[in-house]
């Protein structure tokens, strides 16, 4: 077995086992050994985060475990990012936000981590995001706009954002994907979204599909 593969496997396991310090140590080791940072990111951290996503989908992991895994991944990412090749090709820019009136952003944060781990550049608009701010983000140039809402009362704000994008002539240039507990595919179709994801794991699949 080549030694690099061992280190990647250890990184995956450290993310999967929710060990931030271990992740940091392994990333430093990778840098010291001259292993390319993009390799360590993709074959180590990101792969580990995908395994976390699978456990989450299988209801083996829950929200606390995913938050911890994300913390571990970011700790490693902080080490690696200075060493990433400048020309690295990112998959695309994605803006994410929780619609106005809603502050439930744990789900959005999980999507953010998974998307970053999969090579997307994420612009985090935060929670309780006004319509204009979504529009501005699209105007600044993103490939995908992701919106979520955890409450039935704030779901209509997603439709309002899409309407606003149309009014500003921005709708054609961006894909819109939505999610959140009360959201379903039917609702997504009704308000004219391009994609829908029931959970963080499938959200990344939707991002890839929409940019693919």
């Amino acid at each position: 077995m080549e030694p690099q593969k061992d280190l990647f496997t250890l990184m995956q396991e450290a993310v999967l086992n929710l060990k931030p310090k271990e992740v940091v140590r392994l990333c430093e080791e990778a840098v010291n050994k001259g292993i390319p940072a993009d390799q360590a990111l993709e074959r180590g951290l990101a792969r580990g985060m995908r395994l976390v996503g699978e456990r989450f989908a299988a209801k083996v992991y829950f929200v606390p475990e995913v938050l911890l895994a994300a913390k571990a991944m970011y700790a490693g990412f902080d080490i690696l990012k200075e060493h990433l090749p400048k020309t690295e090709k990112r998959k695309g820019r994605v803006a994410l936000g929780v619609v106005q009136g809603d502050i439930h952003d744990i789900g959005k944060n999980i999507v953010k981590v998974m998307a970053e781990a999969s090579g997307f550049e994420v612009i985090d608009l935060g929670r309780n995001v006004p319509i204009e701010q979504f529009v501005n983000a699209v105007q600044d140039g993103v490939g995908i706009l992701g919106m979520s809402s955890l409450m039935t009362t704030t779901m209509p704000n997603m439709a309002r954002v899409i309407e606003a994008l149309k009014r500003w002539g921005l709708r054609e240039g961006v894909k819109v994907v939505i999610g959140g507990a009360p959201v379903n595919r039917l609702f997504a179709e009704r308000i004219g979204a391009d994609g829908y994801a029931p959970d963080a794991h499938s959200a990344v699949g939707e991002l890839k599909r929409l940019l693919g």
Partner: protein
Amino acid sequence: MASAKVRVKQLLGEDSVRVLPPVVFPMVVANYAARLAGEKLCRVIGDAEILSRVLFSSYQIFGYDLIMVFSDVLVEAEAMGCRVGVQEDEPPILERPAGENGHLADPQRDGRMPVVLEAARRLIQRVGEDVFVLVSLKGPFSLASFLCGPELFFEYLVEKPSAAEDFLRKATESQKRYAQAIVNIGGVPFIGDPMASGSIISPKHFARFALPYLKELVRKIHSFGVWTGLHICGDTKKFLKMMKETGANVLSIDEMDMAFVRKEVGADAVIMGNVSTRLIEQGRPADVRIAGAECLNKGLPKLILASACDVPVDAPVENVQALVKAARCWNGG
């Protein structure tokens, strides 16, 4: 027909006497009652008179068998020192957790506890012997997560359990006092633990960080000589046996197959639930009645027919009526 209070007492009794008509409670709380009365939510949750008035008028319109004084999930967190942001017509939001500075709440003084207690007192004066007035009491797990800030709290569960336990102990102590104050004015403390949901935490974490504190709180409430209930939102399939283990007299269950719930908790447990809130919001009255009848079929005799969670603000009045009718017209199946 015997009063609602009498029928609930029968249901809670030892013997499995058939209570007719079955007890029914679509979980109408402040936000739906406010909408129904044409009041803005921010006014309702800050004023005892308005809160009691909208809840009473909803009770009169639908004629269900319980009243629940529940304004929002942050009442206790605010009273213990969290900063809460009030919005015009949406539930308040947690702006800044209290953290280490969180203190035991004085129910007569802190935050909106006095508003909730006064609203409950007025409701009890109005309906007294006819119907139990439940007052929402947050489960220690949820309250601790608000005090600490949910994300940090979840990290503590995995990385630093002793820090999570400090918050849990403080939350439990404070809730014992609040429960006492609720009982003192004649209310029934009804525990809701939305963050201890099976959609958020694992059964292992529930067993360690939610169950022991719920047990302690339920024991304390029983020592005051009253009954209590426990509602947990989301997928609690793997929590059902532990919910029973808390000792709560009524187990309020979110959307899942009632036959499965009955099998898990046994014939003697009083279940409250669990007609889909999405159906109540988007279905037709006939659908709601059918779903209600199905629940009754699978859950009786020890069942309070209810919505799976709070009635959504946009649910048509006819659908809430349909749920009540499902129980009133029950002919024994």
